């Protein structure tokens, strides 16, 4: 059996309740941390674990904690990013609804480590039912003396607040999230300063993803070194993967980093393979923002090495032949999927979600959507394909936040790998616009 750090107990009936969670070893890590460790020692374990930010950027969590400024007399905040809105990603949703106390325990341990007395969990507003689950878990933990004043007699006080968003993908970007938490529109701020220096209410703030924080209970119980021994190289530990699309078993799976993509895709323990009678055409490995790769680059890198589920291996080959682990949104396309249609769909998403602050993003995403709409609906020209590449290039790197890049990469990579399919839409507009029509010439894996 593969090691499970986050989901070992997630299938136990009633695990969402305090009593069942506690009976299964819940809150022992919190007791250990608060009773036997100093905050600095907790930070040290996070550093040793090598755990990297699971929100997508992969920045080492312990290092970020080490960067937290500690000016005298100024409060510090921990904010958990539960805005999860990246198309293809639904693992935080799964974790919070199934085993909410794992996040609450992680939040208390992490807040203690950072010296925060008020911490926030910012949950996308659509997940109101999950907010209710978290609030119930918080009430239970408080009633049992694990939250509130003088936790376990340690003299340490913590209040946990669950904050709903209002429906805006951009509020997952950490500085937009902080603006939103202050009751404003979700316009990202310039970085630096990073939140670790100037964050919520201009105070030093750590923002971490749900899954990053949920790892803390295991890290404290077993030690950072034990965590670092799981995984491969600098991709330590396990990762929750949200699997969707044309596979037999869509869902959320916890994998040890370093598992081969082929095993993840085809083993019965995970995706169970492509739907019966169909063939793999393409993969988006880490949520809609990362490059799409064609079938022949899914199981092997361009160098012929096995492609692994790790930060390094998935990005092997760079933009030319690689993709990224990102937030772990594993979207699988079989031969029935139209790449042009999907690219248009993603473009519409980014255009809709651009906050509008920077003109390359606001205008560029609009342009890309319009041109892709033309191509998909049979009114495009060959020139449009190059125009798209050009617009994508002009957005990349010229914006305040990475939403611009996130909008550009899927378009650029789709054209890089599936150019013939775009051209077919131009040369065969009648055929291409029949309902469900798909270019038949794309290479697939049997």
């Amino acid at each position, binding site marked *: 059996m593969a090691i499970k750090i986050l989901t070992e107990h997630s299938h136990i009936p009633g695990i969402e309740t305090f009593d069942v969670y506690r009976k299964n070893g819940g809150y022992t890590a919190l007791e250990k941390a608060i009773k036997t460790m100093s905050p600095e020692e907790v930070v040290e374990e996070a550093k040793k674990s090598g755990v990297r930010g699971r929100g997508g950027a992969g920045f080492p969590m312990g290092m970020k904690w080490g960067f937290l400024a500690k000016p005298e007399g100024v*409060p510090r905040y921990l904010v958990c990013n539960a805005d*999860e*809105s*990246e*198309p*293809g*990603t*639904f693992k*935080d*949703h799964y974790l919070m609804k199934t085993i909410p106390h794992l996040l609450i325990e992680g939040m208390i341990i992490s807040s203690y480590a950072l010296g925060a007395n*008020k911490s926030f969990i910012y949950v*996308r*507003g*659509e*997940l*109101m*039912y999950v907010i*209710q689950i978290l609030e119930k878990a918080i009430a239970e933990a408080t009633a049992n003396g694990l939250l509130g004043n003088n936790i376990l007699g340690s003299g340490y006080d913590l*209040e946990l*607040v669950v*904050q*709903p*968003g*209002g*429906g*805006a*993908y951009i509020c997952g970007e950490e500085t937009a999230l902080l603006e*939103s*938490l*202050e*009751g*404003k*529109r*979700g316009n990202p701020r310039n970085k630096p300063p990073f939140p670790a220096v100037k964050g919520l*209410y201009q105070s030093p703030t750590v923002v971490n993803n749900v899954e990053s924080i949920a790892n803390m209970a295991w890290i404290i119980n077993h030690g950072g070194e034990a965590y670092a021994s799981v995984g491969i190289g600098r991709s330590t530990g396990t990762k929750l993967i*949200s*699997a*969707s*699309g*044309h596979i037999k078993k*869509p*869902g*959320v799976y916890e994998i040890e980093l370093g598992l081969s993509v082929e095993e993840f895709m085809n083993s019965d323990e995970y995706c169970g393979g492509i739907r019966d009678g169909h063939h793999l055409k393409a993969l988006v490995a880490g949520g*809609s923002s990362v490059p799409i790769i064609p079938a022949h680059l899914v199981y092997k890198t361009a160098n012929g090495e096995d492609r692994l589920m790790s930060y390094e291996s998935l990005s092997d080959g760079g933009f030319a032949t690689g993709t990224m682990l990102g937030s772990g*949104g594993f*979207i*699988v*396309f079989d031969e029935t*999927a139209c790449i042009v*249609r*999907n690219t248009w*769909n*993603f473009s519409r*998403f980014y255009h*809709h*979600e651009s906050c509008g602050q920077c003109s390359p993003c606001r205008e560029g995403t609009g342009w890309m959507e319009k041109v892709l709409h033309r191509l998909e609906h049979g009114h495009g020209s060959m020139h449009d394909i190059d125009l798209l590449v050009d617009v994508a290039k002009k957005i990349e790197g010229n914006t305040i936040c990475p939403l611009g890049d996130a909008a550009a990469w899927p378009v650029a990579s789709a054209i890089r790998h599936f150019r013939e399919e775009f051209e077919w839409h131009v040369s065969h507009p009648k055929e291409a616009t029949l309902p469900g029509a798909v270019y038949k010439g794309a290479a697939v894996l049997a």
Partner: protein
Amino acid sequence: MTEIPTTSAFTPERLAKVKEIIARYPEGRQKSALLPVLHLAQEQWGWLSSEVMDQVAELLSIEPIEVYEVATFYTMFHLQPVGKHVIEYCRTGPCCLMGAEGVYDHLQARLGIKTGQTTPDGLFTLKEVECLAACGWGPVFQIREKYYMNLTNEKVDSILDELSK
């Protein structure tokens, strides 16, 4: 459509809740309560009229414009009256791979309305939204806090039958 006159006040229970929410934030940071309070308001009136937003501004001691600019930024807030049940349907890529477009066609045909419209009986409003973080369980739509997942045409029919009773 919604019958409640939007000039009415927050219910006493909700008013108490508003106070409780404001108390969560540090002194002078009551503006942080804006999103949770707008959700409460929408729960009561179904949508956010300018009268309602003005009330919220007063409760939080902020300018009405600060409320308007936020309410217009976030897609969950309805700025026009809506039907009793607002169906928010995910139209994003991964759900489409799971067959969302076909099911959506069926839903529209069954209700006899298009995106953004409300049925003449005021029962249903249809809205397209982006990824609801349920992609592997798609096609999916949401009505208030409830998620309806792994939708098929048959499932849509029985949900609508149930809600039309």
